[in-house]
Each structure stands twice: as structure tokens, then as C-alpha cells.
């Protein structure tokens, strides 16, 4: 059994883990023990065909502003499979890689109306909707397929932690003042999280692409 294949199925184990954006080099060291835990925990389940359902509740209801200052809610993503993440526009370490990878998937699924994208900013002070718009344009993203969400600190941090099982904290001592994980999260049409992938690692992004396709096929069969 390849450990990486099962890595994403235990994100819940990652909840308490935060690492500094600026200390990317640490990741490999941190990952090793987690990988071992992952192997232990999942050695029982070899079923590969259907993706696991993560967390014990679907994504909570939300109401944010998008890059056009228009309100977006769960309904914006009704009947869509979407990829979510947390970032901030002035982030100079992992966000560019995450969004380079996400943009490649976005381009690939440009014409597939079943797929959407949702990036939450965790910098509620600086990343106002107009800043998000500017960022989206620079990334080459246009229209409503990829939503950039702006919300209060509490609402974003809450949904990150409770629904997407991703830790985000403000850290005034760090160079980049926010600590967050570079995860890309795969959400199905029932608003359940089906996978979490390190958006800075090519192998993990490849898994995400595979699982997205799997999910699309699964939905089609219904």
C-alpha cells in the first residue's frame, strides 16, 4: 500500500498541526511521523474505489462577499463539486504554488460546469473584495467559476477549522503574520469533504486531479 494514497484520508489527524509558511523545509520532517500514523490508521481499509467522507458533518452554511462584492453562500455551490483553499494575496511562500496548481486544474476544467473553485482569504485586514478582484485578474481568473471569499476573521477561521478541518491562526511574530496549511480541499455535491491534498506537492496535486475525476464519475452514475 502506498502511504501517499492514503495520506489524504486522515486529514483529521492534521488538525492540530500548523507549520510556518516560511519554514517550508520543515514539512518533510513533520510529515514523516504523520505518515506513519496514517499507515497505521488506514491499514485496515483497502477499498480504493470510493473516496472517504471526511469530518462528521457537511460544510456549514456560510455567507461571504466575493471578489465582486456580491454575497456568496452554500447555494452558490449548489450541485457543484468544488475545490476550496485558504490563502492571502500578499502571501509570498506557499500560496503562489498552490494557486499555480489550482489554476492549472481551473484551466483544465474551464468548460465543465460541474466544477467550481473557492479561495478564502485569511487576511481580513488587507484583502478586501477589490484586492481579491485585482488578484484574480492577475491570476488570469475571470467570471464566477472561481470565487474568492472575504469574511470576518471569526467566520473564516471558524469554517476553516470546523468544516474544512484546516487550521489557520494569526501570528503577529511571524514574518508573514499568518500560519496556514497549503491544503486543497475536495468537496462533493452533498457538501461533504472527500479529500485534502498538499497543494504545494506535485504528487498530491496529481492525486487531487485523479480524485476529482473519480468524484465526477461517481456523480454521473447517480
Amino acid at each position, binding site marked *: 500500500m502506498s502511504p501517499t494514497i492514503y495520506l489524504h484520508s486522515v486529514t483529521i489527524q492534521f488538525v492540530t498541526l500548523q507549520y510556518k509558511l516560511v519554514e*517550508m*523545509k520543515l514539512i518533510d520532517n513533520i510529515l514523516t511521523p504523520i505518515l506513519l500514523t496514517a499507515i497505521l490508521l488506514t491499514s485496515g481499509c483497502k477499498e480504493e474505489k470510493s473516496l472517504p467522507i471526511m469530518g462528521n458533518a457537511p460544510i456549514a452554511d456560510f455567507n461571504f462577499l466575493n471578489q465582486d462584492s456580491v454575497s456568496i453562500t452554500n447555494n452558490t455551490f449548489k450541485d457543484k463539486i468544488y475545490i476550496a483553499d485558504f490563502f492571502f494575496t*500578499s502571501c*509570498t*511562500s*506557499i500560496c*503562489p*504554488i498552490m*494557486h*499555480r496548481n489550482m*489554476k492549472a486544474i481551473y484551466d483544465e476544467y474551464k468548460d465543465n460546469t460541474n466544477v467550481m473553485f473557492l479561495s478564502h482569504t485569511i487576511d481580513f485586514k488587507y484583502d478586501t473584495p477589490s484586492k481579491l478582484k485585482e*488578484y484574480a*485578474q*492577475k*491570476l*488570469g481568473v475571470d467570471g464566477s467559476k472561481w470565487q474568492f471569499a472575504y469574511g470576518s476573521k471569526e467566520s473564516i477561521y471558524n469554517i476553516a477549522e470546523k468544516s474544512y478541518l484546516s487550521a489557520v491562526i494569526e501570528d503577529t511574530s511571524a514574518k508573514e503574520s499568518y500560519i496556514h496549511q497549503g491544503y486543497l480541499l475536495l468537496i462533493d455535491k452533498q457538501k461533504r469533504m472527500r479529500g485534502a491534498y498538499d497543494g*504545494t506537492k506535485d504528487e498530491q496535486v496529481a492525486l487531487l486531479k485523479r480524485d476529482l475525476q473519480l468524484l465526477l464519475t461517481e456523480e454521473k452514475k447517480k
Partner: protein
Amino acid sequence: MRNYLILLVFVGILTGTIISCQDANRIQYDMYYTNGRDLYISYCQNCHGAKGEGLAALAPPLTDTTYLKTNKTKMACYIKNGLTDTIVVNGTRYEGKMPAENFANIDIAQIIVYVTNSFGNKQGNYSQEQIAADLNNCK
């Protein structure tokens, strides 16, 4: 005949010296290039890409050989002090922000050797002394 032999030996020694100097240069170049690549992957690739292709309008490519040639003496400043300007690279305008990174001169030299000899660029070696001089002229 004897003179001819002496000349031959002399020429031989001379070429030998030149070759070994070139070897030393070559070795230094190779070392800089390899270390520079590692530094590039850790510090620059996230924005500028594995092939120097940049990131849409967020980060410019490093494939504009003319731009890199004309601005070579400013590169050390960009890397050490960051860059927040409006620049035109490959015919596209960029109004971004590149973060400062407090590297040692040797690291900067290695990064510059890598960048200016990759992605279609071919500008040869660059030394720490040149970096020191370039940094003195930062705006």
C-alpha cells in the same frame, strides 16, 4: 631545432596553464550553477516557476533574455532588497511585489549564475565581487 623544442615546451606550458585556469573557472561556474539551482528552487520557483515561466500577471517570467542582460547589474539589488515597481517583461506590464531576502553575496552570485544561464539565458559566470559592487549601487 633546439630553439624549436624550447618553443614547443613553452607553448605547451602556456596552454596547460590556460586550460587549467579555464578548468578552475569551469569548476567554479558549475558549482555556482548547481548551488544556484538549489537556492532558486527553495526561494524563487514558487513565483517564477520551474521553467522560469512566471505566474500569470502575478510574477514575471525570467525568459526575457534582453531584460535580464540589460538589468543584470540590478539583479542583486532586486534579490536582496525586493522589488516593488512597474516593469515590462516580455512585453507585459507587471506591478507586483517581490519580497526581500537577506542572502549572503555568494548566494546571490550563485542564484544569478543559475538564472542567467537557464530558461534560454546564456550569460556565463558572475562573481561575489561583482555582487558587492552591484549592491553598492542599489537605489
